[in-house]
């Protein structure tokens, strides 16, 4: 069977199209339909069609939840960029051992997300490592409550996202033309001037990609806030999950998911320029 190039190309694309259409687009379409239905008396969903689930979001309560989710995602992103940039710089200037060092940075990332989050539960508890060490050295008298607060969730998110931030920054810095930096120094620029006006602009694509890769998953976080947050705050990921379990309000949960997705898509459009595609 001799297929032409065009036929071959189309045939190769078909399975992916099927998977995407049936396992991504159709399910999202179903969620859209559910978001327009009304909740049954004890759960489930049924007509009449209504926009109520979306207008419910205009309530300041949900706005507050969205805002909190934004803030923590933004904090995670900023911390990851601050911590990741020097590390990426180190990698880019590491000479022949670069590849090995990069592998070592990425290695924890390949292992389980759940396990890495659980590790922080283990570390931050009252009887966890930090408190045991601090108590042992007599620096404190009582264990510090390190777990079940905002900082714990932030630490967990940063820990899991840091390698993901380092990778694109490193990719950009590796291709950086160091002679430009030297030229700036020759022209009399101070270190901070060089940094702000030469290095940062040149690494902008990497920084943007890193911000994107960290911000988006952190916005929809669910596991980390569940294990490290102690149920004291509710983020948008928890809200959605809650609607599909305890609250049994699928239409509202569906609307909440789509609003979350819309925000994410907005971020996608804003952060990426037209000539850069993820794919």
């Amino acid at each position, binding site marked *: 069977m001799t297929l032409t190039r065009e036929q071959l190309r189309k045939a190769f694309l078909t399975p992916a199209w099927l998977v995407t259409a049936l396992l991504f687009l159709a399910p999202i379409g179903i969620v859209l339909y559910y978001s327009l239905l009304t909740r049954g008396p004890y*759960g*489930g969903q049924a007509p009449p069609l209504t926009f109520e689930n979306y207008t419910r979001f205009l309530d300041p309560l949900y706005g*507050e939840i969205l805002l909190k989710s934004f803030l923590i995602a933004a904090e995670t992103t900023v911390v990851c960029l601050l911590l990741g940039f020097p590390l990426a710089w180190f990698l880019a200037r590491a000479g022949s051992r670069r590849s090995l060092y990069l592998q070592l940075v990425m290695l924890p990332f390949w292992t389980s997300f759940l396990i890495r989050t659980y590790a922080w539960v283990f570390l931050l508890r009252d009887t966890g490592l930090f408190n045991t060490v601090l108590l042992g050295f007599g620096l404190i008298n009582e264990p510090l*409550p390190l*777990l079940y607060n905002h900082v714990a969730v932030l630490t967990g998110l940063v820990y899991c996202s840091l390698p993901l931030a380092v990778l694109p920054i490193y990719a950009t810095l590796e291709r950086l033309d160091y002679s430009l930096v030297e030229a700036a120094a020759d022209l009399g620029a101070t270190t901070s001037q060089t940094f702000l006006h030469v290095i940062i602009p040149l690494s902008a694509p990497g920084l943007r990609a890193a911000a994107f890769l960290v911000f988006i998953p952190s916005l929809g976080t669910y596991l980390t806030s569940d294990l490290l947050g102690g149920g*004291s705050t509710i983020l948008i990921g928890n*809200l959605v999950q809650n609607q599909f379990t305890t609250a049994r309000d699928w239409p509202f949960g569906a609307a909440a998911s789509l609003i979350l997705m819309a925000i994410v898509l907005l971020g996608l459009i804003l952060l990426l320029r037209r000539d850069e595609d993820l794919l």
Partner: protein
Amino acid sequence: MTRRTFFLSLSGLAGCTSGKRPRLNVINYSDYIGPTTIADFEKEFNVEVRYSSVIEGSEEVIAKTISGNSGWDVVFPENRLVEPMRSMGLLQPLDHKLLPNISQLSERFRKPVWDPNLEWNLPYLWSCCGILHQGHLNIRGWNDFFNDKLRARTTMLDEPSEVFAVCLKLLGYSINSDSEAELRKAQRLALDHKRFLRAYLNTEVRDQVAAGDVLACQLWAGSAQLTIDEAPALKFTHPSEGFSLYCDCVAILAESRRRELAHQFINYLYRPAVAASITQASRASTPARDAAELLPEASRQLSTLFPSEEILARGEWFRTASGPTQRLRDRLWTEIKAA
């Protein structure tokens, strides 16, 4: 046959068992059955039981079974969820002729409010919700719990119904209140008291109390007793202001096609010896009458397993909330969490 279908069917086959014995799928909570109950049942009746105990709450059961094609046969919903499940068509009626051990049920559980004719479920294990605390603390009720001395070393359950129950009881209302005014007052109380809490935790608080990180926590009597077994210095208190009672029940899903086997399994759970081993392992109270006599003397003395009549008088059973009330409660709970 396309490559895709081939692989799909392979994976489907991989999921099937190759055994010829009939199979029953049971989904329950963790630490909620005797150590050998399932194995003994399998051997005696020559069947295979897939027993899952990964889930934490009843609502998860509904989420998993609401489609009507989950594959599970026997479930253990909480008493206040039996009516919603029935009205959503998720349960099938029980045939009492296949359940001779129903005579084992003690007087209190023969005509429960949530299902007076025991048409849809049988009570399985019941318990109360109270305070587990360090032995040296003198805590008689919730007023002692919400105390500055214990600040940031206490937790409450991550369950809206239980948190509201406490606040409603403190205000002197019923835990099943559906009055918006009362619920809002209870919410106000919960928000005021949030500052005393370290977190909202369910069973993960157990080893923190045992280790001494947490001084007092709201916990179910069964879980509390399991913790006390490992850390005898701890104590459990039935709050003086009143507390909630709940009962986990066993029911058969409407989608199940193994009706007879499911009934045999349920009937098996009420044999006195079996019920005794279940209550020993879970440390929750059993509604089976004769099981109590088979328990060791030490267990029969425990107030967690066998609360006295005067203690029980302070308890109140959970009831099913109506649709609008459920929505109000969810909304108020979200506000508490978001604060």
